[in-house]
């Protein structure tokens, strides 16, 4: 007898077989994809019994028969997508590379004159596979993580960004992944690779959006490398449509004296999971992982972060904030690893949550694994309601209840957004989130 789980895995194995027949790839990548598929077949979908997935139930993803999108998006869709992107990114006038249903969309892309090398994984795999071989599938662990395994088995396209040595790229580089499937529930596997060479500096923003219907599953992996003394600002904006599933991993491998600041904004999807992870693998590095999740209705979002101190004299900072309405549920799990060599580590973590409804819930947990003795690690978490005194104070001055509430909630959120250095990007996100916050609730 075959179990439901086996049927699901068979489905993915079949899809992998079809994909592998069509997709051109160098032999080393085929080997990785094969190994990843085997790993997924072995691991299966996680269940609530897995410690790391205790509060996030992916049964709904497992149940649905998602298929990779086989055809290109039609003309009429392209113009709708163009309008959508324009509305989202009107403040940003830097280069952008766009993917629709996991495929490069040349007609929506504009990467002229940025100083960075911005291309696609698909093209690089054809023309210069040796340039990406040292980085692809090196940090995101497909042997242990079922969704990374699934994404890796289907590596096909995504952004490939290289910031040359000593180059400073002024404007943020936007990587936009659009899910716009027709008909059947679709699975999309975006895969991005970012390499910031020695002493370079750049900002990369990943934006994920999608069509309202039908439902789809985005399983994204981004691998980033910051070489010595490089500065990489990274923003991830998850603005998927209401019914979507979004599961993503982002790894940042940091060399000596590099700085990575990543902010993850979670607004969309019915079920979302973000796993940003920094490995501080050289002395003097600095890693910042900030995040904001704004949830309503029956949304569920899980932020599983990792700050891995492998070498001495590194600092890490983490500020995660959540705003939860309705019956939404949130998870924050902040892992900080300090390995035996990582003396003089200085790490600070905080997670603050604002529950706007009695039915919303948040599970928050720091997870410290400290193997060195001369380190500073602090962490703290709070869960609170709307400040009734502040609300009354504002109303007593004539500010309406709804406006007062929106101001307070926006102020709570802006504490995270104000930490984004690039002003147009910051203002664009603030505008988007304020509108979202004002539109929800009563």
């Amino acid at each position, binding site marked *: 007898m075959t179990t439901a789980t086996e049927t699901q895995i068979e489905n993915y194995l079949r899809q992998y077989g079809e994909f592998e027949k069509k997709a051109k790839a160098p032999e080393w990548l085929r080997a990785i994809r094969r190994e990843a598929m085997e790993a997924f077949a072995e691991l299966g979908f996680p269940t609530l019994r897995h410690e790391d997935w205790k509060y996030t139930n992916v049964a709904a993803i497992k149940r649905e028969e998602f298929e990779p999108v086989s055809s290109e998006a039609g003309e009429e869709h392209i113009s709708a997508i163009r309008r959508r992107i324009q509305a989202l990114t009107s403040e940003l006038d830097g280069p952008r590379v766009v993917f629709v249903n996991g495929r490069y969309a040349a007609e929506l892309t504009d990467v002229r004159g940025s100083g960075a090398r911005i291309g696609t994984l698909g093209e690089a795999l054809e023309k210069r596979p040796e340039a990406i071989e040292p980085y692809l599938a090196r940090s995101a662990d497909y042997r242990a993580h079922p969704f990374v395994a699934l994404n890796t088995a289907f590596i096909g396209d995504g952004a490939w960004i290289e910031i040359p040595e000593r180059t400073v790229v002024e404007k943020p580089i936007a990587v936009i992944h659009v899910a716009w499937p027709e008909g059947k529930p679709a699975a999309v596997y975006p895969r991005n690779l970012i390499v910031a060479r020695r002493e370079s500096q750049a900002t990369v923003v990943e934006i994920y959006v999608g069509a309202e219907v039908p439902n789809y599953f985005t399983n994204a992996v981004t691998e980033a490398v910051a070489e010595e003394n490089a500065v990489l600002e990274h923003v991830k904006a998850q603005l998927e449509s209401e019914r979507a599933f979004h599961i993503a991993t982002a790894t940042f491998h940091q060399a000596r004296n590099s700085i990575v600041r990543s902010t993850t904004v979670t607004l969309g999807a019915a079920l979302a999971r973000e796993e940003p992870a920094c490995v501080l693998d050289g002395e003097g590095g600095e890693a910042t992982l900030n995040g904001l999740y704004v949830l309503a209705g029956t949304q569920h979002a899980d932020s599983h972060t990792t700050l891995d101190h492998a070498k001495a004299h590194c600092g890490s900072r983490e500020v995660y904030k959540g705003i939860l309405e309705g019956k939404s549920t949130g998870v924050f799990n902040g892992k900080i690893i300090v390995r035996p060599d990582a003396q003089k580590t200085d790490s600070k973590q905080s997670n603050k949550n604002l529950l706007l409804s009695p039915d919303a819930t948040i599970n928050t947990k720091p997870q410290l694994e400290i193997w060195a003795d001369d380190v500073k690690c602090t962490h703290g978490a709070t869960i609170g309601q709307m*400040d*009734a*005194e*502040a609300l*009354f*104070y*504002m*109303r*007593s*001055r*004539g*500010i*309406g*209840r709804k*406006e*007062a509430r929106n*101001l*307070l909630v*926006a*102020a*709570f959120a*802006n*504490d995270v957004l104000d930490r984004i250095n690039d002003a147009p990007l910051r203002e664009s996100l603030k505008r988007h989130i304020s509108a979202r916050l004002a539109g929800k609730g009563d």
Partner: protein
Amino acid sequence: MLLEIKNLHATVNGNEILKGIDLKIGLGEVHAIMGPNGSGKSTLAQVLAGRDVYAVTEGEVIYDGKNLLEMAPEDRARAGVFMAFQYPVEIPGVSNTYFLRAALNAIRKQRGEEELDAMDFLARIREKIKLLEMDETLMTRPVNEGFSGGEKKRNEIVQMAVLEPKLAILDETDSGLDIDALKIVASGVNAMRAKDRSIIVVTHYQRLLNYIVPDTVHVLSNGRIVKSGSKELALELEQKGYGWIEEPVGA
């Protein structure tokens, strides 16, 4: 008559704090309310402003011909009621200027006046800030966050000066001020005295009333107004304390 409070009873968590307040305030008058700690002065002020942790169990309040107790706090403010808090609230992340402009525009909208943009607004508040000798940098900081006690009180008076209420209730705005700050705050309040504006000053200290001279002084004790008189009453209270005042006849 701008304000008429009749037999007002209010409770918090089931405990009766106001036990039948009667008070009438005519347009243009300044009334002082004094009384021992815990007698219910702030409760009265908060009830008038509309704080919902206090439940009104009996009585009524007529303000400017309207049933005040039926109005939402923001509607009271828009109708001209202003209460300077004994303990002003800190609002992290919301700038003082933004806050005050939002308040003023809400009130102006109610009055059918045009909303002010940031430039017009700044021009308008500059003189009030000067009058109260307030540090301008406080305007760009989050509301009351990290302000000293005196700065918070001054900020309340700046708000009053900008919002131009019809009825101002100042709850211990003089507490915790040194004499120089007290004079500044008092002159800010005096500048607001007008034929069409009434002011209630809640205070523990007769000293304030040397600068803001009231028309009438009331003593609030154990949830009731137990004595009312001219400004000389404040001097008497200063000398003798509250002990000599008996419960009113018939209470």
